[in-house]
């Protein structure tokens, strides 16, 4: 009787699962960087890209192959920069490739017990750096917002 009672007590004390332990779906996590693509000849209007291959430098797998005029790109947590290689026209014979470095720092905000902290990225003063220049397709880059606190607005514009 005594061992059985003890087991019951130990189960009671140590095994407890609560709603509290699960981070609810829909809780905003660390936001990605929203990039919009614009026309360098007509800076007011958006200009979509077709078959843009996005790959993090040092990464083997691609983030995505994208067509459209705005995309969300994750930044590297706990790093001061994130590097991506942006290759336009991956399905056409002429490849136009640009490697871009984004300089950022971050601050972390407590959400709750289950979700922990989320990161908010802030662009550094010199927020970007084109590693390969010359024959690339990117004409210029513009910062729209300093702080990446959510994914509702765009943060960076790429003119091409």
């Amino acid at each position, binding site marked *: 009787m005594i061992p059985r009672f003890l087991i019951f007590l130990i189960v009671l004390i140590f095994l407890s699962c*609560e*709603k*509290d*332990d699960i*981070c609810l779906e829909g*809780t905003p*996590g*660390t936001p*990605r960087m929203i990039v919009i693509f614009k026309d360098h000849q007509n800076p007011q209007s958006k200009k979509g890209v077709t078959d843009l291959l996005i790959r*993090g430098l040092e*990464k083997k797998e691609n*983030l995505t192959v994208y067509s459209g005029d705005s995309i*969300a790109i*994750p*930044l*590297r*947590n*706990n*790093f001061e920069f*994130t590097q991506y290689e942006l290759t336009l026209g991956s399905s056409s014979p002429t490849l136009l490739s640009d490697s871009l470095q984004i300089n950022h720092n971050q*601050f*972390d*905000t*407590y*959400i*709750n*017990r*289950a*979700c*922990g*902290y*989320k*990161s908010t990225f802030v662009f550094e003063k010199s927020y970007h750096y084109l590693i390969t220049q010359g024959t690339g397709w990117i004409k210029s880059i513009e910062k729209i917002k300093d702080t990446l606190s959510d994914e509702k607005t765009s943060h960076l514009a790429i003119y091409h």
Partner: protein
Amino acid sequence: MRKLRIWLFIISLSISSSWIIAQEVTAEESLIEEVIDSVKKREKKPYTIRFGIDLSKPFMAQLNKDYFGLELVGDIRFFSEFYAAVELGNERRTQQSERINFSTSGSYLKIGFDYNLYKNWKGMNNSIYLGMRLGNSFHKQTVNEYEPYELHHYWNTEIIRQGPEIREHDKLQARWIEVVAGLKVKMINNLYMGFSLRLNRLMNDTRPNNFDNLYIPGFNKKTDENVWGAGFNYTITYAIPVKL
């Protein structure tokens, strides 16, 4: 009550069960009253001071190397079945919640009363009690490491071990009310074993900046969605009778 008195009577006189005869009831009753009165006069309870420790905390410290706990308990009977009760404790605990590893350390003080519901026979001093406490903790929280909440895992999510949020949050307090239910049983001489269950309701707490009191010494786990908590202790206490 009446039944108890009758039983008391039986024991004190050590007579067999065949004593109730209808014709003699009135005489017997007056006799009972007299006997009870004299017993009451003699059985004036001494003011006992009991003190001891909670055994569950050192036991849990043995099982879990990231935990240390000590709780001193004490009570004193001040009138009829009311006891003033106090608990003084200290806890240190490092734990991993879902994404945060943190340490809590601090002391707490609980002051309140117990009301004994158990009617003891003469010479016994066991209790089954209900009580209340006001609890107050003085503690600090330290964030050791955490994994930021990321929905997109293209880059590896790094566990953050240094930075502005890896720090100690000190000078924190919490206040709560406890409802206590428990029992104390006399083992040998003046030694008592006790067990109590506690339901805690948090009144207020000073929240650390950009973190939360996920664990409060004395109160235990604080949840996000409500103010309730729970606890227990398993005590061994020694009683000193004080005759006034």
